[in-house]
C-alpha cells in the first residue's frame, strides 16, 4: 500500500468503522467549550455575600454601608449586632466577607482623628478574596475622599473643587488592555477547550496506531514511514478543521473576542496539531495496549493544562515546574491562542510555531523508528 491508499483507508476508519475517533476529534473541544462557556457565563464574581457589623449606627456609618449595598460586587446578607455573630456568619460560610465599623466611627472621622473600617475576607478561595479586597478598597477610598473633601471645605474654608483636589491630588486612570472587563469567559474557556482538543487528538491518533498492532497483516508490505505519514495526515487535516470549527463556535455563540488573523491562527494551530499528532503517535507506539495508552493520556490532561502557564504563569513556577512546562506542546499553544484571540497579536507566534514544528518532527521521527520494532515484538509474543 502507498501513502495515498493508507490515507484513504484511515479516513474510512475514522468516520465509518471506528466512529469514536471522529467523535473525539470534533467533539472534545466543542463539548468543553460549551460546558465551560456556560460555567463562566457570569464573567466575573459578583454579589459576594457580606455581613455588616455596625457599632456606630449613625447616618455617616449607614452611608458607608449604603455604598457597599450599591456595589454589584457585594450582597449584604445580614447585619450582626455582636462580634460573635459576625464571626459565626463567617465560620458558617453564610458570608464570605465582613465589614466592621467601629464605635465613634463618625465622630473620629469628622473630628479629624481618622477612623479605620475593618474588612474581613475569607482567604480560602483567593478568587473571592481578591474580588472583596479590590472592591472594598475602591469603595472605602472613595468614601474617604468624599469625607476628606467635606472636612477641608468646612475646616479650611475651601471651595468644593479646590478642596477635592487637595484631598486627593493624585488619581489614576486604569486602562485594561485586551480583556477590559477581566471576564473569566474570555480568559479561561479557550484554554480549556484547547486542552480537551489536545486530548481528542491524542485518543483518536492513539486508537489508530494501536489498531494496527492488532492486525499487522493488512499493512505488512508498507514501509513504516509510509504507514505513519499516511495515518497521521488525515488526522492532521481533520483536527485543523475541528480547531477552526471550535474557534468559530467560540466567536459566534459565546462572544469570545476573535481579533486574530486567519493566517496567524492557521500557522499556530497547524504546527500545534502537527506536534500533538506526533506526540500522540509516539506515546501510542510505545504503549503495549490501548488501555495503557488511554490511562497515560488521561493522567496527562490536568498537568499539561495546569503547567502550560495558561493560568498560573511560568514566570511564577520554580525550576522543576518550568522545565516540565517547556516539554509540553500545549505550553506553546494555549496562551498564544488566547493572546491572538484577545489582542490580535502575539510576540511569540513565530517562535512557538517553530518550536512546535521541530517538536512534531522529532516526535514523528522517533515514532517511525519505534513503530516497526514494537510491531515485531508484539508479533513474536503472539507466536
Amino acid at each position, binding site marked *: 500500500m502507498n501513502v495515498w491508499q493508507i490515507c484513504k483507508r484511515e479516513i474510512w476508519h475514522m468516520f465509518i468503522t471506528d466512529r469514536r475517533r471522529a467523535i473525539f476529534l470534533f467533539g472534545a473541544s466543542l463539548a468543553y467549550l460549551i460546558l465551560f462557556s456556560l460555567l463562566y457565563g457570569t464573567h466575573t464574581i459578583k454579589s459576594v455575600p457580606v455581613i455588616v457589623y455596625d457599632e456606630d449606627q449613625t447616618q455617616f456609618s449607614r452611608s458607608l454601608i449604603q455604598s457597599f449595598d450599591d456595589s454589584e460586587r457585594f450582597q449584604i446578607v445580614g447585619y450582626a449586632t455582636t462580634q460573635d455573630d459576625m464571626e459565626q456568619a463567617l465560620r458558617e460560610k453564610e458570608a464570605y466577607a465582613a465589614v466592621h465599623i467601629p464605635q465613634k466611627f463618625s465622630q473620629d472621622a469628622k473630628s479629624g482623628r481618622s477612623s*479605620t*473600617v475593618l474588612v474581613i475576607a475569607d482567604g*480560602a478561595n483567593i478568587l473571592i*478574596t481578591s474580588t472583596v479586597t479590590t472592591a472594598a478598597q475602591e469603595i472605602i477610598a472613595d468614601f474617604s475622599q468624599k469625607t476628606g473633601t467635606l472636612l477641608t471645605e468646612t475646616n479650611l474654608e475651601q471651595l468644593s473643587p479646590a478642596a477635592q483636589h487637595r484631598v486627593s491630588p*493624585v488619581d489614576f486612570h486604569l486602562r*485594561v488592555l485586551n480583556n477590559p472587563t477581566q471576564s473569566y469567559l474570555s480568559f479561561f474557556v479557550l484554554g480549556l477547550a484547547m486542552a480537551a482538543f489536545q486530548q481528542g487528538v491524542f485518543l483518536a491518533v492513539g486508537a489508530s496506531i494501536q489498531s494496527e498492532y492488532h492486525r499487522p497483516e493488512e499493512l505488512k508490505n508498507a514501509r513504516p514511514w509510509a504507514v505513519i505519514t499516511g495515518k497521521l495526515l488525515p488526522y492532521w487535516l481533520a483536527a485543523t478543521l475541528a480547531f477552526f470549527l471550535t474557534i468559530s463556535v467560540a466567536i459566534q455563540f459565546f462572544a469570545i473576542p476573535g481579533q486574530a488573523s486567519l493566517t496567524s491562527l492557521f500557522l499556530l494551530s497547524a504546527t500545534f496539531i502537527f506536534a500533538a499528532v506526533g506526540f500522540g503517535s509516539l506515546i501510542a507506539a510505545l504503549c503495549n495496549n490501548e488501555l495503557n495508552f488511554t490511562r497515560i493520556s488521561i*493522567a496527562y490532561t490536568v498537568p499539561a493544562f495546569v503547567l502550560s502557564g495558561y493560568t498560573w504563569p511560568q514566570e511564577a513556577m*520554580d525550576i522543576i515546574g518550568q522545565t516540565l512546562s517547556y516539554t509540553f506542546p500545549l505550553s506553546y499553544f494555549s496562551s498564544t491562542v*488566547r493572546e491572538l484571540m484577545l489582542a490580535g497579536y502575539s*510576540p511569540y507566534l513565530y517562535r512557538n510555531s517553530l518550536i512546535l514544528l521541530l517538536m512534531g518532527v522529532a516526535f514523528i521521527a522517533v515514532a517511525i523508528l519505534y513503530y516497526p520494532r514494537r510491531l515485531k515484538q508484539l508479533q513474536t509474543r503472539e507466536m
Partner: protein
Amino acid sequence: MNLRNIMQEELKTLFQRKSPVGLLLVAIPLLYSLIFGFAYSRNVIKYVPAVIYDQDQTAISRSLAQAYIDSERYQIVAQVTTQEEMEELLRENKALVAIAIPPKFAQNIKLGMASEILLVTNATNNMFANSVISSSQEIIQTFSAASSQKLLEGLNQMPAPALHAAAPVKMGVRIINNPTTSYTNFMLAGLMANGLQIAILLVAGTLIAKEYRRLSRWEGTSATAIVLGKLLPCWAFSIMAFLICLGVVTVCFGVPFRANLFSIIGLGSAFTFLVINLSFFFSAITRDEVSALQVPLLYIMPGLLFSGLSWPQLAMNQFSQTVSSLMPLTYMADTLRDLLLAGYSPVLLKNLLIMLASGSGLYLLTTFTFSQRRRKIQNQTSKEVPA
C-alpha cells in the same frame, strides 16, 4: 467464590508483577501533589514586569516611580522616554503593566489642580491584572494621601490633622484562614483530590467491564459479592493513597492542617467510596475496558472546575450549579480546603452523608446492571450452544 477469595484475587490482579495497576492509585495523586506543589511554590505573583514612562521628571514623579520600584509586586524592566517605546514593550509582552506619569504632574499637584497618572495593564492573563490593580490602588492611594497631607499643611494645618483630613477613613484588612492568599493553600489539596479521583477512575474503571468477557469464572457467585469484593481492596488503597498525599501536601508544601484527623479521614473515605462506585457504575454499563476509561473523560476537567474549588458556587448560574451538584469533587474539594485551612467546615456532615448515600446508591445500581447484563450474555451463549 466467597468474598474473601474475591478480595484475594483482586489484590493479586491489582498488584501483579507484570503490570501493577494498583500502584497508580498512589502514584498519580502523589505525582500531581509534587508537580503542582513545585509549580505553585512561589505562592503569590510577584515581580510583574513593568515599564515607567515618566514625562514629568521631577522629584515628585520620581518618588512615585520609586514606590513602584520598591514594591515586590513589580519589577521595573525599563524607564522609557516615548509613548511608542512604552506601547512596544507592552505589545511584545516584555512588560505587562505600564505606569505613565503626565507632564506637569508635580506642578498640577502643587497648584492644587490634581493630576492623574495612567496605568495600562495587559489583562490577557487575569492573574497578572488582578495583582496589578489591587497593588496599584494601594501604592497610589498612599502616595496621594502623602501629597495631600503636604498640601493641607500648606493651608496652615499641623501634619497629623492634615493627614487625618486627607484620609479620614482608612481600611484595615484582615484575611482569615489564608492570610497571605497563598496559591498553594488555595489549590493544592483540591488538585491532589482530583488526582486521586483520576487515579481511581483509571484503576477501578476497568474492573467490572473486564468480567463480561469471563463470566464462567463467576458461576454461582452473587453480583453483590463480586462488586463488594472488588470495592473493598480498592477502597482501602484509595484511603491510604489519600492519607499519604495529604501528608506530602501538608509536610512538604506547608499547607496548614487545622482539622482533626477523624473528620479528614471520614471525608477522604466517603469521597473515595463515592468515586469508586461511580467508576464501577461506568464500568458496568460500557462496552469494553477502553470505553470504560474514555466515558469519564468528559468529566475530568469539568469535575475539577465545576467543583467550586476555583470558580465559586456563588458565581454559578442555575445550570452550572446543577452540573456542579453531579460532580463528586464538589462535595470534597471545598470542604477539604476549609478543614485544612480553617479547621472547620459547616457542610462537612451534609457532604459526608451525600457522598455515602450516593455511593451506596451507585453500588446497588452497579450490582443490578451487572447481574442483568450477565443474565443476558449467559442467555445468548446458552442459545448459541444448541445451534
